[in-house]
């Protein structure tokens, strides 16, 4: 077995351990809180007998370890329990809302890299000039502003005042959504060869994705700048200069790749911020994603749905981090990553 494969398996096992931990943590929090979930679900007008029946049906009358065991057994079969809010299996709800959120997060992640990396490289290249100063002030402002503020400001400027982009939603209401294949409107409209829907979806996606990406763009460019400057101090760059290699060749062939390693590592952690901030951005732009569902079930104290949603989000985060680690290993052949990060 190659070391890379072994490390990958090691990471997968560690992730499963962490996921089990997350489920225990969420389960513990959900069950020790004051208040009776069955009573909350049925409302104040339900009779005591109805509440008791629901408690029994949901095993809420059993000891917590037994409840957890039953939950895990269902989980192993891919069943996340039933939502008291939507009256459907949580799995079905998640499958419906997750693609919209992933679409938003992928788009934001791409913007982060496509804008943040070049901005950081240029900032390092023209270090100390006015462009660099503007870039640095801009990125620290981007990092210091919560995603919902970006959402509200972008919406105010580009949607309300200048009417360049739609105010909210994922598609124009008059437009029939493409037949659902993947749940990603962009991909589905390509599959359905429906150019109008594709561009309409892209038009709707632009502002929310930018709002979600802003903090990440700022952080990426700050990190890239610092990392490039650090790399340029290394002896091998000095040697390349001494050989008289052209500046662009040094930047592209020698400096950029090692500088990318710390940036990628932090980007992996940033995915957590994207997943969390998606809640805010979806709320501003009326985006029909998992976060919208998450806020609803939180406000309705829908325990299984909350635990299920958090588990899915944690799993998405862990998978994303494994992917990032693989990318780091590709960029930096010296790291055939050592099993786990300390």
């Amino acid at each position, binding site marked *: 077995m190659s070391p890379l494969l072994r490390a990958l398996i090691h990471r997968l096992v*560690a992730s499963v*351990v*962490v*996921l089990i*931990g*997350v489920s225990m*943590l*969420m389960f513990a*929090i*959900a069950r020790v*809180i*004051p208040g009776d979930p069955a009573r909350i679900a049925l409302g104040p007008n339900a009779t005591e007998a109805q509440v008791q029946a629901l408690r029994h049906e949901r095993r809420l009358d059993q000891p917590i370890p037994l409840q957890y065991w039953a939950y895990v057994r269902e989980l192993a079969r891919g069943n996340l329990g039933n939502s008291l809010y939507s009256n459907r299996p949580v799995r079905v709800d998640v499958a419906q809302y997750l693609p919209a959120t992933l679409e938003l997060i992928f788009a934001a992640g791409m913007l982060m890299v496509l804008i943040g990396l070049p901005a950081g490289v240029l900032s390092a290249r023209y270090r100390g000039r006015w462009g660099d100063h503007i870039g*640095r002030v801009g990125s*620290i*402002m981007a*990092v*210091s*502003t*919560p*995603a*919902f*503020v970006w959402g*509200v*400001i972008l*919406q*105010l400027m580009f949607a*309300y*005042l200048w009417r360049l982009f739609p105010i909210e939603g994922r598609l124009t209401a008059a437009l029939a959504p493409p037949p659902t294949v993947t749940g990603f409107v962009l991909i589905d409209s390509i599959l359905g060869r429906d150019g109008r829907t594709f561009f309409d979806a892209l038009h709707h996606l632009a502002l929310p994705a930018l709002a979600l990406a802003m903090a990440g763009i700022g952080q990426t460019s700050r990190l890239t700048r610092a990392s490039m400057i650090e790399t340029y101090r290394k002896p091998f760059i000095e040697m390349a200069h001494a050989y008289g290699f052209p500046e662009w060749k040094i930047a592209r062939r020698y400096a950029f790749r090692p500088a990318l390693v710390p940036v990628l590592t932090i980007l992996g952690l940033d995915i*957590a*911020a994207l*997943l*969390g*901030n998606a*809640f*805010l951005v979806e*709320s*501003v732009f009326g985006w029909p994603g998992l976060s919208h569902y*998450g*806020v609803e*079930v*939180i*406000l309705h*104290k829908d*325990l299984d749905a*909350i635990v299920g*949603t*958090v588990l899915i*989000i*944690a799993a998405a*985060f*862990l998978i994303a981090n494994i992917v990032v680690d693989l990318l780091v290993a590709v960029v930096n052949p010296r790291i055939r990553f050592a099993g786990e990060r*300390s």
Partner: protein
Amino acid sequence: MTLVSDSAEWRAFWRNPSALTGLALVALVVLAALFADVVAPYPGHAGPVGDFAAMSAGPSAQYLLGTDTIGRDLLTRLIFAYRLSLEMAIVVLAIAAPIGVAVGLLGGYLGPAWSYALMRLTDVFLAIPPLVLAMSITGFLEPSAIHGMMAITMMWWPWYARLAYNLTRAEKQEGYVLAAETVGASTPHILFREILPNCMPAILTKMTIDVGFVILIASSMSFLGLGAQAPTPDLGSMVADGARYMPDAWWLTVFPALAILIVVMGFNLLGDGLREAADVRG
């Protein structure tokens, strides 16, 4: 790399324009919050009152930043919101940092079994995006400023555990730790009297930056209705309320948003300046 005295580090700090900008912003916010009753033009407007004659008025000489939909002075409410935000951030960090640091010190210094158990526990908390964890905890309870504070504390300690763990692992190899072990110093002595003081600059810098980020997360939660409830003035819920009257009453959204930017950026710049001056890791 001590943080006191008239050292070269301090002189570097005083010559760093962005650090000084941060210090100025932080001083402005902290002083306004401390003396809110004196500074705020209409201290009564922090509570559940209304002045319908002056409702939704734009910025003017009488109301510098305008009034909200029931005629309360926006500037006053922002100053009191700063007070609440700073109180929350200080309480959160005063609880989360010591817990996290203790976990990290133990995990970094004790044997591999302890280290594995404590760091996997930390990973469990870190695997849930901070905002999601805080929101779901608040969701199980009733939304309020206190519950929001509890939730943020629960999600914040692992970052200090991670930091202290990495620092401890590095310090463990240093000669002074070996020396203390050789003369038979107790584990608590080595952890808290030998290693901890050397980690303090990094921890304190992180705490400075985190004041801003705790305020950012708290405002994000209250923006979703999961934080402080009306009539308490709160930065996040003010943006949320204002957003409903866009674009006509733009000041209701724009000024609270700017207020968040100012405080978060202030602590960010100040913390970065301290970090650069003290040249700390982490």
